[in-house]
């Protein structure tokens, strides 16, 4: 098959390959080992397929690529419209990169209902990819809600003690947020006759939507609320620590690594894309919430006695950076926001895997249960340190690039945004290094910790790709930014036109 013809169906393949694998898995007999291997093969295959996207991507070109647009339902007017640009491209690859690692990290830790687990995982992957590839709002909303079910089930069935509470809270909270988005989408459909993002965007920009100016603020808020809950932006974040603490490791990895990015991606694509004026208008309080999230999330993370809660709150802080960058409306800010999304996916995904590895050995996430682990588990400790440093934002690892660009962009917008945000680099060092010290340094306080085994082969295969990716992204961010930069530039064009804002360096 030539690359051209593959390019026209590649998004469909990448999106639905995991689902197809999941369906096939249903037919397989319940032999756990076969099921695991099958899931791994499917997820690796999807990853390899998805590499077609960046490899053949025309980097200098800002618009959507690999586009497929076919009428699906005539009434209502729903299209099967999929495409990626430099923004969604990497989120797809992030998803396909993390999923095989999730399979590996669950290899030994999931031993009951193995089949259901991997079916759910693969269904979840399709839903996540679909969110990033859909350009039809109906399709988008379908995938958006479709992520909820497998994730809620992963938490509710395979989670820890309070799993049902956490699953229900997660499900209801994000579901209720989404209802407002649904209302906004339906309003747009009623007034434009289309669910197509590109069509609606053009109609809005051309002033061709009746009643838009009166409704715009409500539409902005409708989308915003759904996304803000998902990000989660302060003060909509309290579902996150509960969900994480109860979720199985793979669930946490995909939840933090990808699911949260649905929110920030949505803000970038839909709030900025469809409502540039309202975005600008509301930016001050959105950025204020983001800044509160950065500092508040970090300070609350600092005092968590539970490792997983600590990482969860650190996500609130990191995702605050993303929102800060997006609403700075600067080239650096948006580039940085995109990069933080990817970097956070890798490093926090890695942190959750590492936390899970410890939980498997000790069945607890309490930091005070550990201490002195660097001696019995040196490889684990070294791997953990690399991921921690990536998360702390050490230059030459991936966290730094994004945070630096975000803060630089926020600073160009208003100095105070950059200054307050930059305190985040102090806080992240405080909460992560303090936690690291309490877990790995000092002497062993619980004798059982002396006997803990170092990383197994499967665990290395799951964790080391994250560490390697953190390093490559930190040394050669140009590989990613090359595609992100033009797309971000295009995303900012309406702001130059509408608000007359100069896109700074």
């Amino acid at each position, binding site marked *: 098959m030539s690359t051209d013809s593959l390019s026209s169906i590649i998004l469909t393949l990448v999106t639905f390959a995991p689902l197809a694998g999941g369906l096939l898995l249903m037919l397989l007999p319940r032999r756990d080992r076969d099921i695991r291997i099958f899931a791994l093969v499917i997820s690796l295959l999807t990853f390899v397929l998805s590499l077609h996207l960046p490899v053949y991507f025309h980097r200098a070109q800002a618009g959507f690529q690999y586009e497929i647009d076919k009428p699906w339902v005539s*009434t*209502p*007017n729903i299209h099967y419209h999929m495409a990626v640009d430099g923004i969604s491209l990497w989120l797809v690859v992030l998803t396909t990169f993390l999923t095989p690692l999730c399979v590996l990290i669950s290899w030994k830790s999931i031993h009951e209902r193995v089949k259901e687990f991997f079916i759910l995982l693969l269904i979840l992957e399709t839903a996540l990819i679909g969110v990033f590839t859909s350009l039809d709002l*109906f399709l988008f909303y*379908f995938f958006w*809600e479709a992520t909820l*079910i497998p994730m809620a*089930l992963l938490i*509710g*069935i395979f989670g820890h003690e309070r799993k049902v509470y956490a*699953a229900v*809270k997660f*499900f*209801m*909270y994000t579901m209720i947020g989404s209802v407002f988005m*649904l209302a906004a989408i*339906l309003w747009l459909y*009623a007034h434009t006759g289309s669910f197509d993002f590109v069509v609606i965007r053009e109609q809005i920009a051309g002033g061709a939507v009746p009643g838009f100016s009166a409704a715009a603020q409500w539409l902005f808020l409708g989308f915003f609320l759904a996304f803000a809950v998902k990000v989660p932006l302060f003060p909509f*974040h*309290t579902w996150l620590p509960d969900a994480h603490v109860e979720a199985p490791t793979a669930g946490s990895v995909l939840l933090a690594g990808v699911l949260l990015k649905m929110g920030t991606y949505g803000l970038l694509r839909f709030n900025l894309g469809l409502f540039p004026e309202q975005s600008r208008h509301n930016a001050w309080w959105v950025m204020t919430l983001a800044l509160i999230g950065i500092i508040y999330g970090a*300070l*609350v993370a*600092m*005092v968590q006695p539970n490792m997983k809660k600590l990482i969860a709150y650190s996500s609130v802080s990191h995702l605050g950076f993303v929102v800060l960058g997006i609403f700075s409306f600067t*080239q*650096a800010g948006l*580039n940085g926001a995109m990069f933080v999304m990817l970097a956070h996916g890798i490093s926090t995904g890695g942190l959750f895997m590492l936390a899970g590895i410890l939980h498997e050995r000790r069945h607890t996430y309490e930091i005070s249960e550990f201490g*002195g682990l660097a*001696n019995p588990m040196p490889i684990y400790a070294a791997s953990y340190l690399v991921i921690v*440093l990536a998360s702390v934002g*050490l*230059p030459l690892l991936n966290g730094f690039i994004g945070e*630096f*660009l975000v*803060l*630089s962009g926020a*600073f*160009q917008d208003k100095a105070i945004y*950059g*200054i307050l945000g*930059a*305190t985040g*680099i*102090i806080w992240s*060092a405080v909460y992560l*290094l*303090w936690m690291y*010290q309490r877990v*790995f*340094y*000092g*002497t062993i306080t619980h004798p059982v910790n002396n006997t803990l085994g170092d990383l197994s082969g499967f665990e290395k295969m799951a964790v080391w790709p994250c560490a390697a990716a953190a390093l490559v992204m930190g*040394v050669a*961010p*140009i590989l990613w*930014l*090359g595609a992100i*930069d033009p797309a971000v530039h295009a995303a900012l064009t309406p702001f130059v036109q509408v608000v007359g804002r100069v896109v*700074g*360096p």
Partner: protein
Amino acid sequence: MNSSLNLWVIPILPLAGAAINGFLGKRSSRQAVSTIALFFSGAVFAMALWVAMRFWFSSLTLPYHEYLAHWIRSGSFSADFAFYLDQLSLVMLLVVTGVGFLIHIYSVGYMWEDPSYYRFFSYLNLFMFFMLTLVLANNYLVMFIGWEGVGLASYLLIGFWFTKDSAASAGKKAFIVNRIGDFGFLIALFLLIKHFGSLNFDQVFQSIAPLAPETAGTGLLTAIGILLMVGACGKSAQIPLYIWLPDAMEGPTPVSALIHAATMVTAGVYMVSRSHVIFERAPTALTVVAIIGTLTAFFAATIGIAQTDIKKVLAYSTVSQLGYMFMACGAGAFSAGIFHLMTHAFFKGLLFLGAGSVIHAVGGEQDMRKMGGLKSFIPWTFLTMGIATLAIAGIPPLAGFWSKDEILWRAYQVSWVYWLIGLITAFITSFYMFRLLYMTFFGDYRGAQADAHGSHGHDAHGHGEPHESPMVMLVPLMILAVLSLLGGLVGIGNRFEHFLAPVFGSVEVVEGASHGTEMLLMGVSVAVALLGWWLAYLLYYSRPELPQRIADALGGFYQTVVHKYYVDEIYAALFVKPLIDGSTRILWQDVDRKIIDTAVNDAGDGARRVSDEARHMQSGNIRSYAAWIAAGSAVVIAFMVWMGSR
């Protein structure tokens, strides 16, 4: 025309050493590990010498630029992996690689019995990689790679003996306090990007050069300068961020010599000097630099008087000497600051290595009250440390005399206040250094003879009678001693300043300051150095009962000095405790749990029936879920059909 120097090889060499030892060292013999470490640190020194030779024989014109690869591109902003070599970075390059190589050699002996031998050398090489990146960067962002990276190496090496809580805490403290400084550094970079669109040294300084000095006292360059100085305060341990450096003495002693005396802590001085174009146009920022430097020099020296841990004395001395360097920068005498940076690397590196040799000799003891009389046991260590003490005290013609005197003279031309405080500091310096010398090497040995393994655990080596260190440790001491003796001579007749003139501009002749005044001030500073020596001789050699009586007489004040003015305790009470308590009680328990989460759950209770239904859904039954989805989708589609048919 320059042929390519391949400068990028310089940082890469030690990185290769770090990687090889890091990944393979655990399974390798000590011999193999030290061969790797010495080969790469030696090769990088050889390469630095080769570069210097090429410049010396005029086959290389400076400044020299080298582009390696893209790093960050965002819109019109870019920061690339690119290197820059001028006379300033050449001096730093030679100091870092030269002293670095010597300390690598020394460490082979010093760390020989440590079970994590390979880890030590891997970290030490990693440090060299980051330090050389810092020195050779051609833009602020690559410099920042090195800047944060040496912080990482410092964190790892301070906490090298991580099973000790105090070591682990000290490493963390160093990293976090440095991060506070980096916060200021970053904001300075954002200002540079915002106003000049670049972080390249060339571009930034070319944009700034035509600007008029901000004589009004405030302005963009002033802000940038002060923020850069915040960064420098963190890295170079100046007030108010100096508190991490004394704790950093938890690290193995070669680390204290290399990172926390000779090289890394001088990065702030280097960065400020590198940014001299900015500072020269921001008089207020220069004044801030001068005041911080002067105060730190004095303040840290006073703490040094009362310390009894041999490494702590040297640590506070380092803080104080770094203060001198900033005093020089603040006086606009950047080359004098760099001159002192170089001589300080020699004599302070030597002092720390000597202290290591002492600690090695007495089985891990660091308390000087349990030393004494060591000069007959470890004569080479005594001789070399004696030279270093003379050098730091400012006794001519040793290295420290020339550079310190240059600083005092240039400070005097700006304000006699700086000079006077600097002079008093010189007196105190001489006093506490000779105090160290007398307490350690003179009188009778006060240590336990046997049973000398002990509280300091890992630094412990031998037992029994104090013994001299092996040659592998003594040779670096001797080389550094020669440098401490003669290293200052390059400054005679302002030759060092002329060498750096292409970077900092030509030597200004200040009117009204005659040669006679200079000679007079020189005489005064030699006199106070001798006075300090005499006082130390009196108190710690001829009348050793006196110090206790003086301490008793001073009472509370003396205790305050012994406890380092309680600065750590004040910071803990002012910042650390409120932050942790506030975050725990107010932010987490009150705001997060009681207010926000209760609100969320209450809202949920309002829709209890809905959530009850949802709970039924949690049967784990996929089919019932599918039914839910189908039902939901049906409602949505029905709604749409209705809309579409309107």
